[in-house]
């Protein structure tokens, strides 16, 4: 399987790097799912600053007339994220990109329609 064909998933978490207990950016965990053996393969981690995150999100926002369901696939509750991380959710239900509703940066995404496929490409580019 080529790198291009691999289906990656992304888990985005707040990260404080200046030790002031205020998140400065996000940790992006890239992983794959092997549905046959029900295993997650974490491939890479990357840190993205708040400014870079804003830049990325602004670039993937689509007009409000578009499908609003898209944004629901990104912001999830911590409980649901924990379910996913513990494999209690059907693999087909797992969104390709996940960020907590409680994230310090959730406001950047909230109420915005996100072009998921473009965001996936951007994240893939940043991480690879």
């Amino acid at each position, binding site marked *: 399987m080529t790198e291009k064909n691999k289906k990656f998933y992304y888990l985005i978490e707040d*990260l*404080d790097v200046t030790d002031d207990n205020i998140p400065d950016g996000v940790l992006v965990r890239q992983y794959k799912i092997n549905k046959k053996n029900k295993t997650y393969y*974490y*491939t890479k981690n990357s840190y993205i600053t708040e400014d870079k995150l804003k830049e990325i999100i602004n670039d993937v926002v689509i007009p409000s007339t578009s499908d609003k369901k898209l944004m629901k696939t990104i912001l999830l509750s911590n409980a649901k994220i*924990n379910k996913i991380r*513990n494999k209690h959710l059907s693999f087909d239900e797992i969104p390709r990109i996940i960020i907590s509703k409680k994230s310090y940066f959730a406001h950047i995404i909230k109420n915005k329609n996100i072009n998921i496929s473009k965001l996936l490409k951007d994240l893939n580019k940043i991480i690879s």
Partner: protein
Amino acid sequence: MGKKFYYLIEDIDINGDTNPDGFLITKYKINKKTLDKIFIKSKYVSFEKFNNKINDINNFSKSKIGGVNQVPPHYYNNVPYMNNNEFNKVMNNPYHNPYNTNQHPQVMVAYHQPNMGNAFMEGLGGGLGAGLGLGIMDGLFELF
């Protein structure tokens, strides 16, 4: 009895030069009934700060018992690092034990960057022989 926390330590590059700058420490609990990992918080700690913390712990433990060579035995229970394959086993199975020790380790170290071996050694100023072991729990607890 207090809650039992686990710590997964990974190298991470923060400044974008692809060289690791410090550790990402993920703190979690394990629900004994469901065997679910309950992720609590992730924290970044620079190599320098991590190194200082380990030195503080070691110095404190030595001074407490009044002898440089009388470090408590558990401080010599090194925490060897694991590769990506072992890391993924740990992530998929809450009680996977990459070190084959009797007790499930509460601190596990994984490195992802190819040049991490060197950085890890430099970061700890003496590397795996620095007495990084169960004693590290004290330091990790303080970091959170």
